[in-house]
């Protein structure tokens, strides 16, 4: 009877997040706060342009947020801007609505499938995505 949210996969992801840290070359960046807990995340677009998505992030945050950021960085890599924004918006909405498992989204996201049972933690999961969308728009 322990939490269903904190699965191995999620915890591992948060221990070894993808693209955690400042990239060598920063094209642009965006910082955001989680007003509920005061957590902070900075999302960077690496390289010379915003066309090919290559996101990195730094954060002081919980496992949900770190894992979510890691999934974002890995699964958006190489998308062009428009596709990327659309993808991110889709994920953000699905996280909020609790419909993550209903769409054809990257499997990696499944580990956040339970998040809608933890309403106070949804912002933790969406924060990287909303921050990235703001960055790209």
């Amino acid at each position, binding site marked *: *009877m*322990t939490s269903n949210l*904190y699965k191995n996969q999620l915890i591992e992801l948060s221990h070894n997040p993808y693209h955690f840290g400042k990239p060598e070359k920063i094209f642009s960046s965006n910082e955001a706060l989680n007003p509920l*807990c*005061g957590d902070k995340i900075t999302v960077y677009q690496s390289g010379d342009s915003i066309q090919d998505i290559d996101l990195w992030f730094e954060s002081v945050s*919980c*496992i949900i947020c770190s894992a979510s950021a890691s999934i974002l960085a890995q699964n958006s890599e190489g998308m062009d801007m428009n596709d990327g924004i659309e993808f991110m918006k889709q994920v953000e909405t699905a996280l909020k609505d609790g419909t993550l498992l209903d769409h054809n989204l990257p499997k990696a996201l499944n580990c956040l499938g339970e998040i809608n049972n933890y309403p106070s933690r949804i912002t*933790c999961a969406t924060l990287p995505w909303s921050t990235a969308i703001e960055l790209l728009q």
Partner: protein
Amino acid sequence: MASFLAIAKIDVMNAKREKEMMKIREEFPILDQKINGEDLVYLDNAASTQKPRTVINAIKNYYENDHSNVHRGVHTLSVRATEAYERARQKVTEFVNSPNKHQIIFTKGTTESINLIASSVTNLIEKNDEILITAMEHHSNIVPWQELCKRTGATLKVIPISEDGDILMDKYREMVTNKTKLVSVVHLSNTLGTINPIEKIINKAKSHSAITVIDGAQAAGHIPIDVQKLDCDFYLFSGHKIYGPTGIGVLYGKEDILNKIDPYQYGGEMILKVTFDETTYNDLPHKFEAGTPNIAGAVGIGASIDFINSLDRDLCHKHEMSLHDYAMDKLERIDGIRIIGRSSNKSAILSFVIDGMHPHDIGTIINQKGIAVRTGHHCTMPLMDFYEIPGTVRASFSIYNTHSEIDKLIDALKLAIKMLKQ
């Protein structure tokens, strides 16, 4: 051997005391429930306490028997509602030992009480004046003063604290000068549990004629308050943290300063006469109570004070501190734990962080075991910056908690650590 006996003796005493307290626990209907299949362990009392049956019933009875609008009515229900409302004011008067009933103003809560002061003293603050707060204040005792400073050109100064979470009194004494116009300090820190030496703080401030404001949000439920002995200008607290309802709070003020400062909100009750050209304000306490008040809320806070008065407060204090010390002792044996707030004069609030683990993750996992703690910055972000942490896990104890609930907390924490470390 001697020390083993000593410990055993304490345990027997604690157990005896706890048995007494369990009669009180039964007064709180909410505590008897399962969360995620486990008994609820409510350790979030610094955020808000639960309500005894007498408080809930007082509100219910008020609405079922006596409700009407107050003060301006000649019919029986209006008289009864007014009497109920003013009786509550009388109870608060005695609760804090205010010299007069009209020095007790009902507000929405501590936050509104502080905002009222910060707004209404504007005419007394000038450019180059200084306002002092401490590094451990709640946002509600920071932001209103920042705004006052913006409006007036005064400067906000922050009294530093030690790593243990005590105000650096030497530094404070140096900071108080003739420029100091107002000193606002928390009585009992909601994050650290520190009980501040407010008598000394008030004395020093008064020696330079500064206005003194005490944020008693956390203290009022735990420490007997005597505003005449403290001799502060203002003392504030919230109903919902002293076993009372939400939406009601208290502002005690000295009569001369309450008369000197501006009204805060304008409308019914607070006026003596209104024409379109000119308005004359009413006397205290009405000057600060515009509009229909939270009558049921006042009735509820009155009942919560009756409840507190019915307790053996010394026994309650000993019980809470025994829970605190018991938890502290067990927590310190856990690897990687860091206690935030180690003042030698503490209340039953325990904040801590665990190496490499985020408070929110811990809080969510132990909630699966029915355990309710608060996690995050506790509305003290600057204090988090001071300790260079994003937040803490905070377990805060009340009269109805038990030692075995702390055992459950510790077990759940160990499980969370195991999960998060894997």
